[in-house]
């Protein structure tokens, strides 16, 4: 019973936390875009425009909810839910901190330490595309269906290098559990570098981050919603809170992907060269590990924004060419080299 309550608290906590990040991210994206493009951005609602997401939320909730006359009603309603649910549930296996000791009881800062958490992530990552395709199909709009089809093609192409990059990580750490991968990244590598995945798998990291951008449908891979080509892609026909769910799901997705990058490649909650556990108390260590983890996550979230306002969108054939002709061979090469290195060192 006690364990159940603790798990419930963890679930609610991380859920609210991720929601909060997604909300703040809408502000960060708009302000960041503005700053990069030499304009102030939303700065009227609250200090620095920080209450802007709240105003957006009120707007989206109170807007008229329109379902197009010839849309498939059930699927139309299902689309945004299918999109945002996997994004939320992927956090179940991501460790967001080490552990916290309360009253002699050790609490792992992770909702569920599944020993195949890795597979769970990969499976859920590809689920999100159903939301896009279903939404695009149900809208009964040529732009929507084009967006949906593009999303499918893109996901199929980039799931492979994504998986290959992750597979190399599994080879290095020899486990499917995200917590064990995180724990293995403590200390130093080759004596000078922090023992982070990115130094063991530099090519793997590049493959992963590129594929992650494609999976999240972010610029430069935002073909499913390419405004200049297909209006707004899969969510052309959506309005009010359904659109809000799509947009929100995207930010939660970004948050998940950033957390994965940190977990696999940037030493999860470990600080380089410093072992926090050696001088912090059990409770403060738990909180510090959580904060360090989200500091790293926030960097990658910012990177998403930064790249978005730097790079123009790829052409469709360029996206496919990059996926099939560059990333997949590189992924295979990376996997081969990793396997070779491990075989030789053991």
């Amino acid at each position, binding site marked *: 019973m006690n364990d159940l309550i603790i798990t419930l608290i963890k679930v609610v906590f991380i859920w609210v936390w991720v929601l909060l990040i997604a909300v703040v991210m809408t502000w960060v994206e708009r302000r960041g875009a503005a700053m990069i493009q030499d304009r102030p951005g939303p700065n009227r609602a609250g200090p620095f425009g920080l209450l802007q997401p709240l105003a957006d939320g009120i707007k989206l909730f109170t807007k008229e909810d329109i379902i197009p006359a010839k849309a498939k009603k059930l699927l139309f309603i299902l689309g945004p839910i299918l999109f945002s649910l996997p994004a939320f549930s992927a956090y179940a296996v991501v460790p967001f901190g080490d552990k916290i000791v309360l009253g002699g009881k050790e609490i792992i800062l992770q909702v569920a330490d599944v020993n195949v958490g890795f597979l769970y992530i990969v499976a859920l990552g590809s689920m999100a595309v159903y939301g896009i395709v279903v939404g695009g199909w149900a809208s009964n709009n040529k732009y929507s269906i084009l967006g949906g089809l593009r999303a499918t093609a893109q996901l199929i192409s980039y799931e492979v290098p994504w998986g290959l990059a992750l597979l190399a990580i599994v080879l290095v750490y020899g486990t499917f559990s995200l917590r064990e991968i995180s724990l293995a990244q403590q200390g130093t590598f080759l004596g000078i570098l922090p023992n982070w995945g990115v130094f063991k798998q530099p090519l793997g990291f590049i493959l992963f981050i590129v594929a992650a951008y494609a999976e999240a449908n972010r610029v430069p891979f935002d073909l499913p919603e390419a405004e200049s080509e297909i209006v707004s892609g899969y969510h052309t026909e959506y309005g009010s809170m359904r659109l809000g769910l799509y947009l929100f799901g995207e930010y939660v997705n970004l948050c998940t992907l950033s957390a994965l990058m940190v977990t696999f490649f940037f030493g999860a909650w470990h600080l380089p060269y410093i072992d926090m556990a050696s001088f912090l108390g059990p409770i403060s260590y738990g909180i510090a590990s959580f904060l360090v983890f989200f500091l790293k996550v926030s960097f990658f979230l910012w990177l998403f924004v*930064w790249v978005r306002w*730097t790079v123009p969108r790829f052409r469709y054939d360029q996206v496919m060419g990059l996926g099939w002709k560059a990333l997949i061979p590189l992924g295979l090469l990376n996997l081969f080299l990793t396997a070779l290195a491990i075989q030789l060192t053991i």
Partner: protein
Amino acid sequence: MAKPVVEKRYKLSEQVYLWELIKGMGLTWKHFIFNVKASFRPEPHTIPTCWQYPEDRRPIAPNFRGAHMLMLDEEGREKCVGCGMCAKICPANCITVENAKVPEGEEGKYAGKTYSKTFTIDWLRCIFCGFCEENCPKGALMLGPEYELARYIPEECMADKSMLLANFHKAKQEGKLRPPREPVPVVGAAAKSGEEKPAASADEKGEKPAAKPKAAVKAKPKAAK
């Protein structure tokens, strides 16, 4: 002949794309840092390309044509004599002037012997061309610096005399009154003014051509002041 297509040969560093991407991100980072620093400065206008409108306004041109003002002279008397020249030339037909003799005991309020009993400008119709100002023989009507003319109720856009006078007082208080406009030179007017006959015939025809030189004469000494 169509231009021959020149295929751009990319260098290897460009083909890899990553390095070029990082260069681009350096550029956006520079902009980002500049603007973040700028947005923390206390002045209202820190980001050079953006005016934060109600607090931070662009300067208007010296001959800006905004809301109309009915001018008062140095002794505080209304210059308008209610001749209706402004209404006559108005291309949008938005000015209504009602002429009346100055009632007894109120001579101190008006500069002329007649005055405008009512003077209404329909801002919904007005195109702010400034012809009324150019055409006014007494320099009694001017377009002022005020440009926030949007209203919720159409009736409020019918500017009556009190509003026009209030505009004048406001502009005077803020020191935004500009000297009267130089008369627009008319092509061929110099040649015609030498001969008496055409000028006389114009006088007979109506006030309009005659009024212009008058206004010019009136305006010039003031501009010199």
